């Protein structure tokens, strides 16, 4: 039997309305899906106990504008996306997913089992995890729990 890691999400609503905040055991994580180049949704086993419709946490982040770099040989407007074509990329999708995986991992040492993935509220100083705002790239949190 292993120790659990509890993942905390909160939007900027001050925990004042339904689903402003949620905490899930990391073991209930089912997977994440890229919704767009600025959003990814992280799914968990539903808190209602039915095991059917997953609960979701939609995280928003900035697109990465790919406006610099050399044009490659196939660099035409109708060709494959490439560095320097000016198309907004989704580099933060991978970065946010990677940071989530690191935070949710049960292999971390010398940390508490209360892990803030993202908290957009005004936070106090010097209170350890309570002061943590989580993944810096995330700019909005929307929680779906049926």
């Amino acid at each position: 039997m292993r120790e659990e890691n509890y993942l905390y999400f909160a939007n900027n609503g001050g925990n004042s309305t339904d689903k402003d905040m949620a905490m899930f055991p990391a073991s209930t994580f089912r997977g994440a899906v890229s919704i767009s180049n600025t959003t990814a949704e992280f799914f968990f086993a539903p808190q209602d106990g039915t095991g059917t419709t997953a609960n979701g946490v939609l995280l928003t982040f900035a697109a990465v504008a790919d406006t610099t770099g050399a044009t490659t040989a196939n660099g035409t407007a109708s060709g494959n996306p490439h560095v320097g074509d000016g198309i907004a990329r989704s580099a933060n999708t991978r970065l946010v997913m990677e940071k989530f995986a690191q935070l949710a991992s049960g292999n971390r040492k010398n940390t508490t089992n209360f892990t803030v993935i993202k908290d957009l509220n005004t936070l106090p100083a010097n209170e350890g995890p309570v002061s943590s705002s989580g993944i810096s790239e995330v700019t909005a949190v929307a929680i779906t729990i049926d």
Partner: protein
Amino acid sequence: MAVQNAIPSHGGETLVTLIKDPNEKFCGPASNFLGLKCDGAGSMKLRFEDIDGSAAATVIDVTVTDTVGTGVEMKRVCQAIAGAMSGYGIQGKFVKVADTLTSDFIHADLLSVDAVA
């Protein structure tokens, strides 16, 4: 002299307890915790896998302090609950998270258990 060894409960697991009144109490293994959510200002719902065989979760409503307006008290309570449920492998660990009957609470910002259903 023989020493009585502690008998592990639920296979050697942390058990958490929340009590509203003599008729509404919950005690279950931490591994059955499904999660919790904010249910409004100063209000949270904790859910555990149901223990009577039905599909729906056991839902426990609790009240927490909400004076600062940033939700930090709720976050502190979440941290305390996470800490209380740690140590799955500690045999027979029994943690009372909240007992409205005796006013025993695991954190000062956890004020009451309002419903166990």
